[in-house]
């Protein structure tokens, strides 16, 4: 099922929660809505589900306008953040009930429940009540319930955020595999950018009700369309420092970085240059800008170190496999991995 | 389309509730012969009220209010701890105790009233407001316990446990966390207790003689059998007087009702 949103807008009182949002989700894609809390991603999901009606704009399923069709007549399934597993029914009934009211024959219901619970490894929990289950188990019940109705669109609202960290990583991988095997069009909401990068076929980054950028994880990571996206994606976050554009170079204070092909319109203007900590090395690399600095902090992650280096008044974070031996270091900034953002925070290509 | 149905229901409910009340109030001010002949009376008078007032209605009113407030206070003081205990704590015999408390509330108030009247006479509580309030508290207590217990059941334990984790004592958890969360439900329980007392007519009649509460004063002619029935105009006046403070009271707590339901319900 293909899902299209055209200029969807939703207001709550004076607040514009969703502001002219448009995007398309291809059939079988795992599409992630990513952004900080309050950016409108959940509201957008609920509009797709039919739980909210937009003030303007359209929602299309395979080209058909479903904007004003109520939730129960859209063939979608949803996994809520709190799972919404009905507390007064056993697990089996929770999963089977949506099928029962569709009046499916008994054998079919049992077959589908068996299938879903086997994939999710919860067959041993069928006779239990939700209050007897752990959070992770309840989450699987919610997913199983969403799968048995064989929906055309699967919606997930931060389904992993209530799980503890270890479980989250495991569940993440299982979800990815599941979606790939079943090929259901899935729209997934999260504020966790690692989750988005791992799971998504494509990501839509949202902030304050607007879509900032839509792209594959690679595109979002390597070609962020704005400073916001660049900062939001990637851990540890991108380093930023200011500079002034000169002819064929940008003067950032502690260095003059040569740039070819910068538009003449920008000469004399302020810009922000960004580079990820993983693209700053303490070992010499080719095609790099060298700067000298003093180490002020070392964070030990076990597998690597995050160094906080003071370079001419600007603090840069860099990743190193080894601990620095002296406080004076030389950093090599990978020139091919520099990002430039103009004053209005959009990306500048060169 | 849906909006039309909603407004139809709204109109229906409004008429259903308001017509009996408004019409009776109008009737009480109407000249009775005019009332009998036309749907909306044209001639009005206060003379029935004057006559009725001379029969001693004002002080009965005041007594009813005092008894009601006493009842709330007493039933809360005694009943909330029990409601909390039943709703919150697991202990052996919880269901048994629940049924027991209810069992005690089973008798019609008339029969409860008679032995109590005899007792009150002996200890000097007969024909006093405290005596009636004590009796009303006994009536209201089981309901206060039941209602508050289901209120407390619905407050997630984790919120209280969070309080304990942050170092609050049991009493502090109760006063700073549980009570505020239960406040909307508790205000319903308070309303309930007051109204039980206000509406209560039988014990109030039997346990008093000169110091009658309002409903008792009104019902007496009916209880005493045929021939004592009020003439129509006094019926209307009596009803109006009895519901007037109730209307005032409801208007006064309306904003608290809105707070109680407005916050939770508008979603």
């Amino acid at each position, binding site marked *: 099922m293909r899902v299209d949103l055209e200029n969807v807008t939703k207001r709550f009182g004076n607040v514009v929660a969703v502001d002219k949002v448009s995007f398309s989700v291809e059939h079988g894609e795992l599409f992630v809505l990513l952004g900080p809390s309050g950016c409108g991603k959940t509201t957008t999901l609920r509009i797709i*589900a039919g*739980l909210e009606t937009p003030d303007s704009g359209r929602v299309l399923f395979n080209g058909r306008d479903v904007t004003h069709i109520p*939730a*129960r007549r859209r063939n979608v399934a*949803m996994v*809520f953040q709190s799972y*919404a597993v*009905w*507390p*007064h029914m056993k697990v089996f009934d929770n999963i089977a009930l*949506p099928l029962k*009211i*569709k009046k499916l024959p008994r054998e079919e219901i049992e077959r589908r429940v068996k299938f879903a619970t086997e994939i999710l490894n919860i067959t041993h929990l069928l006779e239990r009540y939700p*209050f007897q289950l752990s959070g992770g188990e309840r989450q699987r019940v919610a997913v199983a*319930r969403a799968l048995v*109705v064989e929906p055309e669109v699967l919606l997930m609202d931060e389904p992993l955020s209530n799980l503890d960290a270890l479980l989250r990583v495991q569940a993440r991988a299982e979800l990815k595999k599941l979606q790939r095997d079943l090929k259901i069009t899935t729209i997934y909401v999260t504020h966790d950018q690692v989750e988005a990068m791992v799971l998504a076929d494509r990501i839509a980054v949202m902030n304050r009700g607007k879509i900032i950028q839509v792209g594959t994880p690679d595109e979002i990571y390597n070609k962020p369309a704005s400073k916001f996206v660049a900062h939001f994606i990637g851990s540890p976050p991108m380093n930023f420092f200011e500079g002034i554009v000169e002819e064929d170079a940008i003067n950032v204070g502690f260095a003059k970085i040569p740039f070819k092909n910068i538009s003449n319109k920008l000469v004399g203007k302020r810009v922000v240059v960004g580079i990820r900590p993983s693209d700053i090395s303490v070992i010499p690399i080719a095609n790099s800008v060298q700067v000298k600095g003093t180490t002020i902090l070392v964070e030990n992650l076990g597998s690597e170190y995050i160094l906080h280096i003071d370079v001419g008044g600007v603090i840069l974070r860099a990743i190193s496999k080894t601990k620095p031996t002296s406080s004076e270091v030389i950093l090599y900034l990978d020139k091919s991995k520099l990002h430039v953002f103009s004053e209005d925070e959009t990306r500048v290509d060169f | 389309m849906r909006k039309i149905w909603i407004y139809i229901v709204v109109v229906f409910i*409004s008429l*259903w*509730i308001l017509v009996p009340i408004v*019409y*009776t109030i109008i009737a009480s001010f109407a000249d009775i012969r005019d009332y*009998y002949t*036309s*749907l909306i009376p044209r001639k009005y008078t206060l003379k029935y009220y004057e006559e009725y007032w001379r029969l001693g209605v004002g002080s009965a009113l005041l007594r009813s209010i005092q008894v009601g407030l006493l009842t709330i206070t007493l039933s809360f003081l005694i009943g909330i*701890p*029990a409601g909390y205990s*039943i709703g919150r*704590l697991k202990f052996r015999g919880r269901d048994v105790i629940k*049924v027991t*408390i209810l069992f*005690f*509330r*089973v*008798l*019609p108030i*008339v*029969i409860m009233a*008679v*032995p109590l009247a005899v007792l009150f006479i002996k200890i000097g509580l007969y024909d006093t407001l405290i005596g009636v309030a004590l*009796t009303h*508290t*006994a009536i209201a207590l089981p309901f206060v*316990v039941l*209602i508050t217990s*289901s209120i407390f*059941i*619905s407050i997630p334990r984790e919120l209280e446990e969070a309080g304990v984790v942050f170092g609050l004592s049991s009493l502090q958890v109760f006063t700073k966390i549980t009570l505020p969360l239960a406040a909307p439900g508790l205000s*319903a329980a308070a309303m309930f207790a007051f109204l039980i007392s*206000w*509406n209560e*007519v039988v014990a109030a009649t039997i346990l008093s003689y000169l110091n009658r509460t309002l409903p008792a004063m009104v019902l007496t002619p009916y209880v*005493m059998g*045929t021939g004592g029935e009020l003439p129509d105009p006094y019926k*209307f006046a*009596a*009803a109006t007087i*009895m519901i007037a403070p109730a209307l005032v009271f*409801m208007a006064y707590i309306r904003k608290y009702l809105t707070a109680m339901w407005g916050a939770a*319900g*508008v979603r």
Partner: protein
Amino acid sequence: MVLSVNFKLRVFSPYILILPTLIYVAFFTGYPIVYAINLALTGSTPALLQVITSPRLREVLLYTTMIIVSVIPIQLAVAIFTSLFFINRFKGRELVLYLFILPLAISEVAAALLWYTMLSSRGFLNKLLLELGVISRPIYFFGYEFRDRTLLAIVLTEIWRATAIVFVIIYAGIQMINREYLEAADIFGFNFWQKLRYVILPLLKPSIQTALIIRTLFAFQIVGPILILGGEYVRVMATEVVYWYSMRMNPYMASAWAVLIGCIVLVLGSIYIKLIKPVEV
């Protein structure tokens, strides 16, 4: 030392909290109950026996049952549907809500008088229908020949007055239901009746249980509308108590009727508690 005191307190504290209520209620009702049972059973022909063998029993039981069986289910259904209705947002919602529960403040005596105004032969309904030309003679609701209609009047009065009690409890219960349980039902295609049956009613069980218990308890003790509207020819168990005590000055027969009421309500209460088991959320 401190530890053991705390431990003891924790173990006993539920009982300590309940104790004042138990003592108070036990005294105020235990003592009268004992005395009342005593009254009902004393004498060579105990009053209770007289009541059970009296010819009046059948008539009284019939009227009591008819009223209660009509009033309570209707009130429960109205309360549930009205609660669901009030979940909708619309202008003036709070005002209508307030109106709906207004009768909470109105006593059975006042309510009976209000409905007398509505239904008497020169009351609102008759005058309205006469003006509109729908009827040519008044419809009588009161009087011995119109006993059945009197029952209708009593049932109407009770529904008008007491549904709010049930509603308050049910409405509070409905708001406790997590919105997402209902949204999940929406997503999975439940229509209104399916949501009601599979999600709302089961989760409403604690409130329904409380409401039924409270309402039934009250219903057996109503005397106002019966006395005021029904006069002498509609009798329920509670009015028999009043009749025997205030009119006939016979505390023995009055107590006998009371004891009978007590047994019936006890049985019903236990049935409610056993049948409607709320599930821990």
